[in-house]
């Protein structure tokens, strides 16, 4: 086992091309658990902590570029929280202060868990994932990037570089069901926005199907929307909850979220 620590994006992409099986590590909040519990022994770990280009966020012509190393704690800071409120609310529900200090949006995408808290807010905001390899960059909508439980469209020679999103400015919120207020993997979660410009309701659920998924309806169909969101989900029974409970909870969350964003 070896750790490679590039100091620029160019170097990181060159190393990834050379070692396609290298497992990237940023905050480590997922990968370290695998290592600590002997579940993973990657040949090579690619430590992205020293790549300055993967830190922070920028704004260009209204489009936000959240670099993949953006932490949950950073997503909760007032300026970004004002632009992407549901993402900030979701970040606030991730783990604990310690986890939010290290865990990143890019890592959430890379792990591609159906329960990834940042994913529903990104879906609601039509975010795109920027992927790069040594040859160039491509972007994919988050909905196409997530292909299955813990499976993404990321190729072996690619790294997640950023998320691009044009904030809708629509009223939006995030809700999550779990046994306590911290250290919770979502039993189910929901991001919802009421986009008055597009006359559209947009909801994305987590932990209620193989991938977090988006459901939309016209603003005039708010009454039927909770039922519609629940019907669009395909949850399973697992240690955190039953499929029936998750469907029911999604209906309740959607109704509550609608109340929050429409009044």
């Amino acid at each position: 086992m070896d750790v490679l620590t590039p100091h620029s994006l160019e170097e990181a992409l060159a190393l990834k091309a050379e070692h396609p099986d290298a497992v990237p590590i940023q905050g480590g909040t997922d990968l370290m658990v695998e290592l600590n519990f002997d579940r993973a022994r990657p040949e090579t770990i690619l430590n992205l902590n020293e790549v300055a280009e993967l830190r922070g966020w920028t704004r260009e012509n209204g489009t936000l570029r959240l670099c993949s190393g953006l932490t949950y704690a950073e997503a909760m800071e007032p300026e970004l929280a004002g632009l992407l409120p549901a993402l900030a609310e979701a970040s606030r529900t991730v783990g604990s202060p310690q986890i939010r200090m290290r865990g990143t949006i890019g890592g959430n995408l890379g792990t591609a868990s159906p329960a990834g808290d940042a994913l529903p807010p990104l879906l609601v905001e039509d975010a795109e994932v920027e992927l790069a390899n040594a040859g160039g960059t491509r972007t994919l909508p988050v909905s196409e990037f997530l292909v299955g439980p813990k499976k993404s469209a990321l190729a072996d020679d690619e790294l997640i570089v950023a998320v691009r999103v044009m904030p809708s400015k629509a009223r939006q919120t995030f809700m999550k069901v779990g046994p306590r207020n911290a250290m919770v993997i979502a039993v189910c979660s929901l991001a919802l926005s009421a986009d008055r410009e597009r006359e559209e309701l947009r909801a994305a659920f987590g932990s209620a199907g193989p991938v977090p998924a988006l459901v939309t309806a016209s603003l005039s169909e708010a009454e039927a929307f909770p039922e519609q969101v629940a019907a669009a989900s395909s949850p399973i029974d697992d240690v955190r909850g039953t499929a029936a409970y998750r469907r029911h909870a999604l209906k309740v969350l959607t109704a509550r979220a609608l109340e929050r964003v429409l009044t």
Partner: protein
Amino acid sequence: MKIDLTVNGEKRDADVWAGESLLYTLREQLGLPGSKNACEQGECGSCSVLLDGKLVCACLVLAAQADGHEVVTVEGLGEEGELHRVQEAFAETGAVQCGFCTPGLIVATVALLEEKPDPTDDEVREALSGNLCRCTGYAKIFDAVRTAAAAGAETSAGAETDAGAGGEAAENGASYS
């Protein structure tokens, strides 16, 4: 592989296994067992340390990621031979029972008071939500945080009148004292 890091203000190096956590390095290689090893998955907070001044779980940091960085553990709080005011407050209020969670809670409290010297109860709850204690029920821990905050308010009021004295101490990592 070899890493160089600053631990509690001192330059240290260690020969680490590539998959090793910073927690293991601190405890087993650098002789600093204050940070406790419990869940190894970031759930319990008993390994909380400050990495470049930020509160993290040492079990979730790859040792190699700490290369070139600065770590402060519970052993590095306070001045030489003296307890940090947060440590004193924990002892004074009876916030310590079995003591296993205490180092992590103390480091988390230090991080909180750095950011918010006079936190509300909700802010304390939030800040310590990643640190589990199975003995105390948290009431005494909350007392300790309030006591430490009050002691800090007194110290900083005193420091204003003492400005200029002890400049050297202030340079020696007094930001965590």
